């Protein structure tokens, strides 16, 4: 099925912290971006969302998110494990994943790039920089970069 390419691209954010989710949503609004922001709270929910299983069955036949913002430290299944699964799946690995985390640890940076993450960003401290980051992300991934064609 060919989708209407004017449907705004979905950004999927996985983060266990409700404050960070709220701030991201506000930053996106402040940046006046047209994208829809969906949230999941941990790695399990993330995989369920992407596989359209469990509570996310209705999402079948809807397009995949155009970008995944992934926090690393989450309960039940953390970002590193989820990243590994995503990049191992032939269908899911085409979705660009940007890690957005508080961890500055060098080994995290190395490991995630090893696993094939597209970018690694340390969560900005001030709200202003968060807004800027969202704007830049959207501009880069949705205007400059060519995303793979829409899939289900």
């Amino acid at each position, binding site marked *: 099925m060919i989708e209407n390419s004017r449907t705004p691209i979905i950004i999927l954010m996985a983060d266990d912290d409700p*404050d960070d989710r709220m*701030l991201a949503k*506000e930053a996106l609004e402040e940046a006046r971006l047209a994208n829809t922001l969906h949230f999941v709270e941990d790695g399990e929910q993330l995989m369920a969302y992407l596989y359209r299983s469990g509570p996310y069955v209705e999402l079948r036949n809807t397009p995949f998110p155009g970008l995944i913002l992934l926090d690393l430290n989450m309960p039940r299944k953390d970002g590193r494990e989820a990243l590994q699964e995503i990049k191992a799946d032939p269908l899911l690995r085409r979705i660009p994943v940007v890690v957005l985390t*508080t961890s500055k640890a060098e080994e995290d940076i190395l490991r995630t790039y090893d696993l094939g993450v597209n970018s690694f960003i340390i*969560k900005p*401290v*001030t*709200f*202003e920089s*968060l807004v800027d980051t969202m704007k830049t992300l959207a501009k880069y991934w949705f205007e400059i970069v060519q995303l793979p064609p829409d899939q289900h």
Partner: protein
Amino acid sequence: MKQMWIWLKRGLAPPTFEEEETTRVAALLNTTLWAVIGLTLIVSLSLQIAAPELRPGRVGLTIFALVGGLQLLMRRGQVKLASFFFCLALWGLSSVDVLVLGGETTVAGTAYSLVTLLAGLLLGGRAGIGFAGVSVLFWLGTLYFPADVVIFGEQGLPEAFVRILQSTHLMFLAILLHLAISSMNRALARAHRNELDLQAEVAERKRTELIMERYAARLARSNRELEDFAYVASHDLQEPLRKIQTFGDRLQSKYGELLPEQGQNYVARMQQAAARMRTLIEGLLAYSRVTSQTQPFQPVDLAQTIRNVLSDLEIRLDQVKGRVTIGTLPSLEGDPIQMRQLFQNLIGNALKFHRPEVSPEIKIEAWEPGQVPSVAGLSEPVPAEHWQITIADNGIGFDEKYSEQIFQVFQRLHNRTEYEGTGVGLATCRKIVERHGGTIIARSTPGVGTTFILTFPQKQTTGDEI
């Protein structure tokens, strides 16, 4: 009567000296001399009865005089000399024996054996051999003497005399053999005791080593737990702090104008406090990382390290118009990142605590072992195999009674409106210096300046790294 008894006891007991060897020889000589006195008495009395024409009394007195002289010599401290004279006298008498009695009797045999044994015990093995050698030469030599040199020949002397002389030689030999054997036994017992003592000492040392090992392991474990705690605490504390800062920032920018001035003031102070807390936590993390995130020791060129630090501090140097003079600095074994941190903290401090209206001037010098650094009124020379580095500034200085306090974590001498800072910098410096096996102290005069004195070992021994 009692006084005479005391004198007798004193006379009988051997003298003691500082060296154990000398005391032993003196004891032996003393016993031998008293044995000679005893034997001379017996012989003189016997001869007086058996052969008075030989006038044993005169010989006896001569011998007493000789022994007396030797005792005096010995007690004066000349033990070796007394021993030698005694052996010589005995040898002389034995040789007279040979001449008087002719070379065929066994008297000479025992006489010379006596002298040899005595010399061996008193003066050492080589002396014994020496005397034996001379005795043999002399005895064999008498075989070729013309007959009239031999004074009496066998027929001239009463049988009794010969018998008595033989007996005394034999007794003397027996006494000496006994002394020799007991001396040997004592030495063996001493050696055995020493061995037991040594074994006990080794066992004790092993026990102590084990205790030390266990203690070191416990200490290492405790340190690791503390570091883990410090790291986790700092790390986990940063997350809610970040929220406070972000939402405070959000509050200010989105709804700031809705707040009355007082409200805006409150939010501003809250933000400042949050920023301070962040700096404190970062400082604490850095402090805990001194021993948790380490690099192995390698040669570090201090001059290069300081040049790097100065380039990092370029902006600040420009701002305060600071000037840094560097003397010839050595290379030492250390953790390069920590060395950089150390000097960054110290030089940063010197720039920060400058006198108002006076541009900071910092002098960094190194001093070799034996030199006395010509700064801050120091008077102790640099210890061997160490370097001393002094960092002297012309800043505000401080009262030296705080010179230890400033190295404690979170200790400050100023409040935060006067000078910014967390009070962790110098504590980190001390921790770094101590990890390198060195010391750091501060000398200062308020209003004049401060000097930091770092002492480092030139070489690091492995196993000191914690």
